[in-house]
């Protein structure tokens, strides 16, 4: 088992190198001169040139990338063009807000998605199944940011029950967490249901029934354990997306997380900040994926025994 984890960690290195390379290349293509950005439009040409030299912007591409990676490994992504703070420190100060929101969102998603998916599958074609499948379909079709706005419209503007944004008390959490949670719940419901329907058709379920196992045990013991294996992947993916991809929802609710930091940085053309946030999110995402794979090995004996 340790060997497996170790191997997966090793495999993460080329992935992270690749990710930084992609991000760096994309940012490299950005038109506009960072030195000019820092010094302002009216700065004299010599001063800009001097800063370019100082920042190493005149070096060849690969050399710049090498330096970027070296600095990145030490957590040095440079300073923000706009606030002049260390970008990494800035990201870390924002991360807890994102992590809290993502965790609550996934919790809501799992609490709704898995039970509803199971009940839908065991009562296929029932009224409950139809209603929850339609709800899930609407859930996956709704743009997240729009759903957020509609929740604000209902609960903040009309009913006045909940704040429309900001960070602080528990009340601030409810709407953004619901926005993230319900759309992930829709995906998890669909996945759980189809996985469960797939499993319930398997021969070993028939074997269990032929043994005289009652239907509840067939579902809870024999089917569920198998059906949840692919669901774990989806939950993990959702968590990863919420950690990194909650950009839009964070914007809607003025949530002081990493996602909104990125959007603001893009608007202000704050390249070091954009680079660092994208790398940070991608790394977080990769670690979540790694976590899911390891969890997988614990749940599925077929994978576990490969690495004993």
């Amino acid at each position, binding site marked *: 088992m340790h060997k497996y984890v170790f191997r997966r960690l090793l495999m993460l290195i080329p992935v992270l190198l690749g990710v930084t390379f992609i991000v760096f290349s994309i940012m490299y*293509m950005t038109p506009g001169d960072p030195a000019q950005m820092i010094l302002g439009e009216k700065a004299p040409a010599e001063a800009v040139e001097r800063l370019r030299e100082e920042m190493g912007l005149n070096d060849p591409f690969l050399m710049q990338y090498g330096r970027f990676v070296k600095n990145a490994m030490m957590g040095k992504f440079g300073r923000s063009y706009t606030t002049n703070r260390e970008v990494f420190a800035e990201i870390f100060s924002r991360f807890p807000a994102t992590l809290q929101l993502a965790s609550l969102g996934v919790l809501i998603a799992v609490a709704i998605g898995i039970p509803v998916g199971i009940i839908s599958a065991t009562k296929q074609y029932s009224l409950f199944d139809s209603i929850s499948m339609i709800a899930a379909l609407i859930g996956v079709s709704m743009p997240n940011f729009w759903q957020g*706005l*509609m929740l604000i419209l209902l609960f903040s503007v009309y009913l006045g029950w909940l704040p429309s944004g900001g960070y602080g008390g528990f009340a601030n959490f409810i709407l953004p967490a619901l926005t993230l949670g319900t759309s992930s719940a829709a995906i998890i419901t669909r996945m759980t249901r189809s996985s469960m329907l797939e499993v319930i058709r398997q021969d070993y379920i028939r074997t269990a029934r032929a043994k005289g196992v009652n239907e509840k045990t067939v579902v809870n013991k024999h089917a569920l354990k198998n059906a949840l294996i692919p669901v774990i992947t989806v939950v993990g993916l959702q968590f990863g997306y919420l950690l990194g991809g909650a*950009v839009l929802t964070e914007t809607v609710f003025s949530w002081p997380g990493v996602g909104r930091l990125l959007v603001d940085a893009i608007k202000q053309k704050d390249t070091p900040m*954009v680079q660092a946030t994208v790398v940070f999110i991608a790394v977080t995402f990769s670690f979540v994926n790694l976590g899911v794979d390891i969890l997988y090995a614990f749940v599925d004996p077929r994978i576990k025994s490969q690495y004993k």
Partner: protein
Amino acid sequence: MIKMTETQASVPTTPKKRSIWLEVFRRMSKNKMAMFGLAIIIILVLTAVFADVIAPYEEVAIKQNLAQRLQGPSAKHWLGTDEFGRDIFARLVHGARVSLKVGIVAVGISILIGGTLGAVAGYYGGKIDNVIMRAMDIFLAIPSILLAIAIVSALGPSLFNLMLAIGISSVPSYARIVRASVLSLRDQEFIEAARAIGASDFRIVTKHIVPNALAPVIVQGTLGVAGAILSTAGLSFIGLGIQPPAPEWGSMLSGGRAYLRYAWHVTTFPGLLIMITILALNLLGDGLRDALDPKLKQ
């Protein structure tokens, strides 16, 4: 051991393209939800095509009329007016053109790049396969919306950059699908037969493998258009998509955000339309997958 001969002969499966697609459509036409989705999509496509007939672009969808700003739905303005006094219905109609265009072109780009990479990886295998697929894994390690955001923010917001960014960000999933189909087909007898009679690799791939790998790509593509429309709206929402004053659903929604308290309709209707469009595409995609299922399982 003595065995009874298997008297049940297998039915020869000669690939007749026309009848397969007819059969798929026949099976899908039984699926009411899928047909509902298809109907909505046809209406949307017709709306996009005849947008200029329904509402003149410059006069109604673009020209500002501040005297009439933020009016609620009425007989004159069915869905009300926006913060610049423009008719929301007209803008939605023209927005359909943008959304569908971006959706289709972006998916086209993904299929073209992803499909080629996947086909090459699957067909040649070995080192080439390894290099391509590892590169795809790296792309998959970045959430696709984030990748799109990064690309657009680097290249600058424009219609083309948007389509490119969204297209590129979903290349890996098509590469994987096509590679998987090619791998399952590569060693089948009819491919070997083609190779035996001296067909070139290019010919084998384009004439034999591509048509057979089409089914899963079509399903993914349909769902992909939905994803692309959603991404477009999202990027426009944070100001990285289609730039004003061009009518785009996501940016219309974003424009109304500041007026949520006074004019609910400005954000509500564009979002509703995005949702209906995505819903329709999802229904159609699911329906197609179910209809193609026997083929996918092969």
